[in-house]
């Protein structure tokens, strides 16, 4: 088969480009440590979230000195809790599930972004810096009031943070 010299060169460069792309993504996973949303959490019954030990009473819990967990239940059209307050300079793990259809949990202006699928739990850990306010949206169409679905993440100064008392 005769392949033109320029074309051989082009194919070679294309392969180099592809390998570089795959390499950069691999670097992001292995070296920079960007973890993908995966199958680590066990499935849950979307109709029985009320009985679930964590999703039955969603919200913020402290798990270590600077580490927190937030359980969120997505529903059409909102998040429970809809305002999440966490302290600055902390590491926060969000666990999000849905009680009805497929949603997303996306913190605007950051790369904290996940699909939320009924029956599955999306877990993502983020490092939070200085005090700030972020919008949270559902960016997967979930029904006719989809556009009303929003929440807020409030990062407050460490000394102003107070954990809500558990009932």
């Amino acid at each position: 088969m005769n392949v033109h010299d320029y074309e051989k060169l082009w194919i070679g460069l294309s392969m180099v480009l592809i390998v570089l792309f795959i390499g950069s993504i691999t670097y992001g996973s292995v070296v920079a440590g960007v973890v993908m949303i995966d199958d680590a959490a066990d499935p849950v019954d979307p109709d029985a979230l009320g009985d679930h030990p964590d999703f039955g009473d969603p919200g913020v819990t402290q798990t270590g000195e600077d580490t927190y967990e937030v359980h969120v239940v997505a529903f059409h059209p909102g998040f429970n809790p809809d305002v999440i307050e966490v302290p600055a300079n902390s590491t926060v793990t969000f666990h999000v599930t849905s009680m009805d259809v497929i949603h997303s949990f996306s913190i605007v202006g950051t790369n904290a972004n996940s699909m939320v699928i009924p029956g599955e739990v999306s877990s993502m850990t983020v490092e939070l810096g200085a005090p700030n306010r972020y919008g949270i949206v559902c960016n997967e169409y979930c029904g006719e009031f989809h556009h009303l679905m929003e929440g807020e993440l409030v990062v407050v100064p460490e000394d102003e943070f107070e954990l809500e008392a558990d009932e």
Partner: protein
Amino acid sequence: MSTYVEQFPAEARLVRSAMYTAFVALGLGAAFGLLQVLHRTNVLRVIDSTDYYTILTLHGVLLVLTFTIFFLVAIFTWAITTSLDRPLPDHRFSWTWYGLMTGGTVLAAIPIVGGLIDQIDMSAAVLFTFYAPLQAHWLFYVGLALFVVGTWLAGVDWIRTYLAWRREHPDERIPLPTFMVLTTMGFWYLSSVGVALSVLVFLLPWSLGIFEHVNALLTRTMFWYFGHAVVYFWLMPTYLLWYLLLPKVAGGKLFSDPLARIVFVLFLLLSTPTGIHHQYLDPGIAEGFKYVAMTNTMFLLLPSLLTAFTVVASIEHGARQRGGTGRLRWLGALPWRDPVFTGMALAGVMFAAAGFSGIVNAGLNVNYLVHNTFWVVGHFHLTVGTAVALTFMAASYWFLPQVTGKPLWGRPLALGQVLLWFLGMTFMSNAMHRGGLAGIPRRTAEPQYNFSFEPAIGSVAELDAQVVLGGTLLFLSTVLFLTVVLGTLRGGVDPTRIPANTYAAALSEAEDGPRILDNLRLWVLIAVVLVILAYAFPIAAIVDRSGWLGPGGSPYPQVVWVVEYLVVALALR
């Protein structure tokens, strides 16, 4: 040398019908697109935000299923009959698949439109992706299934034509256009089985109340098993036109026939085992499966990069045949007055830009930044919305005369139309990409929340203005396109003023390539193995986690649900 309608009058009628159906879908889809652009940006709201999603469903289904696939069957029928130089074996059979596709479209459209009319108790505002547990009226699923079966039978029609030819020509190489059709249909059968099973085994029985619930992650995975391959199903007729028609109208020959075959074989192999790249951010799927999908996707760049080379080389050959010289001056010698050429060339340029945003989407962890944002909408308006749609419109200016015997009317208008599309998409797609980077979601009626989005450059108002400007130009371009089509159809038949029905010959011909390229059985077999490798474990894992029918959950929307959440929605406001 004569026109297609003189060579194959019966097939020309079929091709015409399929094209007209595609054009009707294009016109309607474009009008809905304009409505959405004006609504989202809050410029003009003629519908309620709750109805926006029905309009969006129509826009998506009419453009990416009806317009593209009806045009595809037209092109493929032309390609098979022209390159094998023989008619389809049985015209009743051909009209049957055309009827199934049309009937399926209409059946699916009934409940979607029903969602807009209060008196009709049906709806299907489930968008093009119809993710369970969002539920559509069962007619929607039936329509979809009939449409897909129609495309399967169309494939059978082309394969029968090919086999009949093969019996008479046992030792000849498969003509390139036929080769392209057969490889494309290979991955279409392979991938659409996934969505067909999802619809027939799970979604349809569930919508009829036979199952109480379905596995949301499983049906979603089965959708994307098909959902990325369908993208290449739109793109392959586009590539076919870039390989066969573009070099011809540029005045030259296709650079290399064997490399064109390699490109189509690569698409056959890699189109389907990449679908999980739409699910990078899905819970319940292990990172390893996502990584495999990422590497497969990156390798899919290769056939597109090869295409870029071949197409540019073929065009340059054409320009030099026309007297073009110099390193870049040959560009001026190309037939820019011809809307067929200019439209396809501009579509190709925009597809290159789409490649860049596609790499970002394909980048496993980079995808966090853009997943389901407006960025993605910008991306696929460059791919299916320009590379495919603009190529189809430009090619129509060549095909319409071929299948009607009527010379093209309003050539300057046609040229203006393709230029206008390019301009409109420049603004709309640019602003969509930028908005996505600022976190503006896709698929939403009102991206106006209690907080504001902060684009890195400029303001949201500026991006909105670009979307409105672009969307309006695109709508005008569509109107112009339909005007040229109608103008042409109103004209008289005059085959003497129409170029003969041929396609580009190749500089490096089929015989230069190894015969193994034509061994379609082998390639299909490898494609099946790759699909099994990429999908057996993820599907098994999903079913193992929560069963074929999922861990529970109810279908939506429900009447009570709507009332309940109306209250919640008002409270949240």
